[in-house]
């Protein structure tokens, strides 16, 4: 061992979070699931929750997230993760329960389950990955697809007279009484990633303090299905997408209503 080196680097400054499994991921280059996973794993570690957490995986690219996050996991039917999480949390109110869902899962087929979980003030935490498309199935139109965006099922571009408008989930859920915390973040710059971590930390804190339902929406990328290079995909998030989906905290309760 080199003593000089030891002096130069006296402590570990960067390492894999304990809750992140050391394996190669199946995610595409430039996809932000990896960043969101790492933030999730870091936050689980930060609150020392690894051994008392149950995660609920969605249907979509992140269905395989149980290969990467080292906690107990249940796989939910498409869109039903908030209902499955409700069942877990009601059985084990002292465990930390989260779902991780994409935009097709949460904002299309699972709209009913997410709204009612929020409305019950279900004490769970939701990480919502909005990349404006269905990734796993090959880039079809999602409820969050931008107007004019060409996808596999909107080959001429999304047109509001036929397909309606992109749905703003963080704002929508902020209007619901049972929601304790709702925020939208992005992960396209180091500064945004720091803010995203802070939002996830607050969302976790809501559940730990039993304030109620918490959700963090991530503006994410899908370079593969967008037909873009990863760097261009970042620019799209920073420009067009965050123009329509503004970043920010839409709701933050100080304490639970019933306290």
């Amino acid at each position: 061992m080199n003593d000089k080196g030891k002096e130069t680097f006296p402590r570990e400054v960067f390492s894999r979070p304990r809750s992140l499994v050391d394996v190669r991921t199946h995610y595409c280059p430039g996809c932000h699931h990896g960043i969101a996973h790492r933030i999730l794993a870091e936050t689980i570690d930060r609150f020392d929750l690894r051994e008392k957490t149950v995660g609920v995986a969605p249907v979509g690219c992140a269905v395989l997230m149980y290969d990467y996050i080292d906690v107990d996991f249940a796989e939910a039917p498409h869109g039903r993760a908030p209902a499955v999480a409700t069942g877990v949390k009601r059985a084990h109110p002292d465990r930390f329960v989260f779902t991780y869902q994409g935009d097709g899962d949460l904002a299309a087929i699972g709209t009913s389950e997410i709204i009612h979980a929020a409305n019950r003030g279900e004490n769970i935490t939701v990480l919502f990955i909005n990349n404006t498309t269905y990734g796993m199935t090959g880039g079809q139109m999602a409820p969050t697809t931008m107007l004019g965006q060409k996808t596999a099922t909107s080959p001429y571009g999304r047109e509001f007279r036929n397909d309606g408008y992109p749905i703003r989930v963080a704002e929508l859920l902020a209007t619901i009484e049972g929601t304790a915390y709702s925020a939208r973040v992005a992960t396209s710059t180091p500064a945004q990633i720091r803010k995203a971590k802070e939002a996830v930390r607050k969302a976790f804190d809501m559940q730990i303090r039993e304030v109620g339902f918490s959700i963090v929406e991530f503006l994410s990328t899908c370079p593969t299905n967008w037909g873009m290079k990863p760097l261009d995909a970042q620019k799209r998030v920073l420009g067009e997408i965050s123009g329509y989906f503004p970043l920010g905290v839409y709701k933050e309760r100080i304490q639970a209503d019933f306290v």
Partner: protein
Amino acid sequence: MTRAASGTSRELMKGNEAICVGAIAAGCRFYYGYPITPQNDIPEYMAAHLPPIGGMFLQAESEVATINFLLGTSAAGKRVMTSSSGPGISLMQEGLSYMAGHELPAVIVNISRSGPGLGGIAPSQGDYFQAVKGGGHGGYRMPVLAPHSVQEMYSLTMRAFDLSDKYRNPAMILGDAVIGQMKEPFVPTPYLPTVSAEKPWALTGCAGRERRIVKSLYLKDDEIEVHNWKLHRKYTTMQEEEVLCESYCMDGARVVIVSFGTAARISKTAIQVARGEGIPVGMLRPVTLFPFPSREVNEAAGVADAILVIEMNTGQMLEDVRMSTRHHDKIRFLGKPCAIPTPEEILQEIRRLAGEIGVQPVRMR
């Protein structure tokens, strides 16, 4: 402790309520549901009786959510139940398929109603196919128990919990509005568990152990093939070990009725009258619709002159009876899709069949 729970005396209750008493006796402390006629007594009973004993009642926004509440609570290692009727049970099929694939136990009660679509609320056995053939996607089965009395609404519910835990598979109680709504006395016998309460697969947080994953997605090589054969072996074992079938008045029976649930209950009345007339008629009553008592039906068909299948539908279990035996020429059917057959109608058919096979009724004084 209520008298019902102590198992010392008779109770007078609706069938739907007896299901709740049986579930609570079997240790079920989690019930989720959504209103639909004719099963509303069940969620209403659970809403009143579970919270005082530390249980959880939660009304869901839909049956789709309901079955996924069950999935979560079952994955967390707790006994859990829901109840619904046809249209609601249809909405649960996705979740039922997932629970079968995930290998998760739970009890699902179908107090069935008549007709496809919204249909009607009249008693019916039209959900037989959906219940016993695997109503959701992918090819799965579940134990289906068909009570024909309030006593069985109680006891078969306890049995359903044990079966679902034993096989890590959903189990169904298939009743109808008659059995659900009628009141009669029953004895709340004590629950005697036949399975271990241990659930070494449950999601509880991975303290001091490797993490557990409850799932049904298998993408690598032949994993899904292996998983499906494993599930198939469970269904085969159920067929070998879990058949329940009542033999009623089968001594010397030349006409054998095969019916279940309410239809069987009414058939018993007709059989009593017919026996009084000297007609050698009996009944095989499948208590488990899956696994189906094929051996019993085949043996009876070999000996009897006629098999009369009676259902409150247009002929569903009829197909399982046909598959159980080669004696198709002996099989007759009496069915009503949306109404209860009267004892007189059944009796008339028994008499007609008796004449057909050359039995002369002996009129008793």
